[in-house]
């Protein structure tokens, strides 16, 4: 199916952004990262956590990212996501917990292309922090379906003030 090729091309664009210095680093979180660790789940966009650029006024901006993408022909948006090879990519500015998840991201592979995804322990902490019903369901799936480093998870929960239950 072409979805695999399209997804691979989309993450290649993210890798190119790092190689060309447009962004320092990125990591995939949200539903797609969860799907790396558990069975396929429904999701509508690809969450790319990227530190935005601070402007002189103090505001943060993804303008550099969107300009780069536009120059490569990716200037179509859908629900606040930019379409890269038909994949809706949501560029998300990380909070302290997600920023640490980006720092500690692990490589995954699609086709022959490597890309960075959140570790399950960080996804668990993020879902337990947000606590919407759909996040709690994803947290439960992670607990049931994939091996968790409980010492690491406990440390993340404690440092970021996330409750286990």
């Amino acid at each position: 199916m072409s979805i695999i090729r399209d997804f691979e091309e989309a993450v290649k664009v993210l890798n190119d952004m790092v190689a060309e210095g447009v962004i320092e680093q990125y990591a995939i979180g949200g539903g797609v990262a969860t799907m790396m660790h558990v069975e396929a789940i429904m999701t509508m966009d690809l969450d790319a956590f990227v530190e935005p650029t601070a402007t002189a006024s103090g505001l943060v901006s993804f303008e550099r990212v969107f300009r780069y993408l536009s120059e490569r022909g990716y200037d179509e948006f859908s629900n606040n996501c930019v379409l890269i090879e038909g994949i809706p990519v949501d560029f998300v500015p990380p909070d302290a917990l997600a920023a640490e998840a980006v720092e500690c991201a692990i490589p995954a592979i699609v086709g022959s292309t490597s890309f960075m995804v959140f570790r399950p322990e960080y996804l668990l902490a993020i879902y337990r922090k947000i606590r919407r019903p759909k996040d709690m369901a994803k947290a439960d799936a992670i607990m049931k379906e994939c091996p968790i480093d409980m010492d690491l998870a406990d440390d993340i929960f404690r440092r970021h003030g996330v409750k286990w239950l």
Partner: protein
Amino acid sequence: MIYDKRTGTKDDHRSAMAKLPFEKKLEQLVRMQTLAAALNPKIRAKYGDSIPWGKKEATT
């Protein structure tokens, strides 16, 4: 529960699905999105052409 002939053990079905290659999961996701768009007009209205994922082939 499913029975694994190779190991002679029972495994939880969801755990087995979790171990599928990511590429298989992507294909499953696209099937789920296609079905959701076909069955639910709200999803169709909200996400329109961005689902299912992937570059659309030109049709003439």
